């Protein structure tokens, strides 16, 4: 039986989107559990940021075997930035990494992020979504910095959940 490419691709596409949707649902369901267990005194934002730290730490570790200093400082930073942008793409976003005008500066841009939409369904404040992403990226850098004996910083310049139309992060080397 010949392959109907359109049908096969659309089936795969649907499966991918379903799997991506599960990422957000799973995360926000667990967030609700954590808030409930933490009790009424706890602040949901603190819990969200702590979760971002734990995930960032783990993602940072998983990057260590893949990053390679032999590509030079610029190549290394670009590789790292592409990995961060790639995380968004895996989740269903549109993201890229671009060299900045100054040496040792790279911008990571995301023009479509699925997290705010999902967060809305679970009643999560938009500021928490923005700050969690920033904390996630910052924590990823922690182990990377120690491992490669460098001092990279990342700052969030724009955020979709703040209504700024895109996420814009600046990765740079602090002397």
């Amino acid at each position: 039986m010949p392959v109907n490419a359109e049908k096969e691709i659309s089936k795969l596409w649907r499966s991918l989107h379903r799997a991506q949707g599960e990422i957000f649902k799973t995360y926000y369901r667990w967030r609700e559990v954590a808030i409930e267990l933490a009790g009424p005194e706890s602040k949901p934002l603190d819990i969200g940021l702590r979760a971002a730290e734990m995930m960032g730490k783990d993602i940072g570790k998983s990057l260590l075997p893949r990053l390679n200093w032999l590509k030079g400082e610029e190549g290394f930073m670009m590789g790292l930035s592409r990995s961060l942008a790639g995380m968004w793409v895996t989740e269903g976003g549109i993201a890229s990494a671009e060299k900045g005008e100054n040496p040792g500066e790279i911008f990571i841009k995301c023009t479509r992020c699925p997290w705010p939409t999902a967060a809305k369904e679970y009643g999560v404040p938009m500021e928490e979504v923005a700050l969690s992403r920033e904390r996630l990226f910052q924590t990823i850098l922690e182990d990377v910095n120690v491992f490669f004996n460098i001092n990279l910083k990342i700052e969030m310049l724009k955020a979709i959940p703040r209504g700024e139309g895109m996420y814009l992060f600046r990765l740079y080397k602090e002397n």
Partner: protein
Amino acid sequence: MAKLLFEWDYSSYPGAKTYPNLFQPIQIGNLTVPNRIKYAATEDNLNDHNGFVTDADVAYIRSRAEGVVGGLCFMQGVYMDEAQKGQGYVGQAACWDDKYVEGLRRLADAIHGERAIAGFQLMDCGRVGAVDVDRGHAPSTVPQRLRIFKPMYEMTNEEVKEMVRQHADAAIRGIEAGFDVIEISGIVGYLISNFLSSYTNRRTDEYGGDIRGRCQAMVEIIQEVKKVCGADIPVGIRLCSDELLNDVKGNTPEESMETYKIAEEAGADYISCTLGWQESIYPVISRDIPQGNWLYLAKRAKEHVKIPIQMAYRLFTPDRPNKAIGDGDLDIWEMCRSMIADPLMPKKVLEGREDEIRHCVACNLCLARLFRDAPMTCYINPTCAHEHDESFTPKPVEEDDKKDVMIVGAGPAGLECAYVAGMRGHEVHVYDKREEMGGTVLEASRAPYGDEELMTCPHYQKEMCEKAGVEFHLGAEVTEELIQDEMPDTVVLATGPVYSKIQGKGGDRKNVVNVLDVMAGTAEVGENVIVWGNRKPGIGVALKLAKEGKKVTIVGREKSAGFDVNPSFKWRYMIYLKQNGVMAYNDCDIEEINDNEIIVKTYDGYRLPVKCDTVIVSEREANDGLKNVVQAEGIELFVIGDALVPRNMSSAVHDGYRIGLRI
């Protein structure tokens, strides 16, 4: 005058004439070593989990001591701290208290019993330690690159000094136990190498900074150990000549040579030259690295220091080290894996019995096992780590129990079984429809990246069979009639696997060929090739064809390609598949074969077309042929190797050996 522990005269042995440099004495410190051979300290995970030496380890070491024919035989490195931060292997011997001396003495006595020189190694595993505790110690808190290793905490200045003292105390215990040489391990990611490397040492105190500062802990250890050893007991150190960590800002080769010079200045009597860390992204000792590849590093080390240089690392045959010693590039030939595979390897060299050597095939299964807390096992040597177990030793059969044994198949399973059964006194006949011995290894050894070394296995087995009086019937296919005519007491079916049939449409097309025919060069293969089967045979043929310029795609049922290859080697294949542009559809099957394409079906039902002129079948199944015939005649039957369950050469050899003992 240098001390000589045991007199050895090699002059009448053939090996001493063929390899004269290997059997010349050498002085290390104030000790004369009668030859240039060393079994290097190798973890074996055979001791109990509290660090006490076991019977298994004593027997393991005794057989290696016999092998070095008067040379150096080292026990595995011991850890030296009660807190177990320095322990890197669950079965590693301990030496942090006097209570361990008695067990250690058994090892020294076993080595001396073979008139060899007993070596004791001090090994704090540092960054790759803490196997049984939550955190290890290191010069700095650098995150682990590999998740299997525990997090580290930075040692205080006092803890570094305590660690130095632990080395000296352990050396005292080693001497008390009767060892003749003390060695400090400073390699592959263990604690001293962590201090030496710019990658893992970020300290700014006296134990960090430039290369001399990073060497300070090593210097203090050498000096303190030298103090307790006195003039008569040499102290050596194992050091990386090249860390291969340039991707993470490790030491440069020049800095590594600086560590050699500083170790010599500190009083080391010899250096064992190694390279690479467990974290290095480059291969060092796997089969894809040519033999003798690293000798240039020993030569470079010789150019930097005056003390003797020793080296292992892909030196599996005596010719290269013999030449290197003659050329002044090396002083002592070390062995680890080659004596795991054959403990008597150098003894056989000396006695002119090189064709009886069971050669290591550099698969690194031994390492894969150790890293997963399992006892030492050798891919190719079924008796490895069973030296203490009487049931693994072939015993002669009583005259009345002697059997007429028919072995069907002269592959690694059949040949292994044949010589073991033959040695025990059975009358053994090996039949194979082919004219050549080796079974599917004949084809498998044509795969690239060093697989020709696999043929050392059937070569060894053939030699052993001939010595055991096994009779060969090559070019003779075993049929029902032949079995009925011969009516042997026992039949061993070692016929190899049968190759699966593609169940989908087009499975019987002419462009569907067998992996063995492709490897042998007798099948025609197009430009776009599909290999059906993602285990080792599929990978081997895929790489061979990809290197010939074909576009190769692997389709296989296993979740990952190379499922049957041990992890310490599998990573090499994954890199080579990628480098050669081989695409792998894992967890998939072939649904249909058409004129110029196949339809691949994923485990969950997706279908995709892949361009293809030739499909190569490497999927295998058990081989039931002749089983019913043998059973119907009431003959004792054994099925071994791939005929039983298609696996790998190791399983074939181990099956063969075990059944050889049972018949």
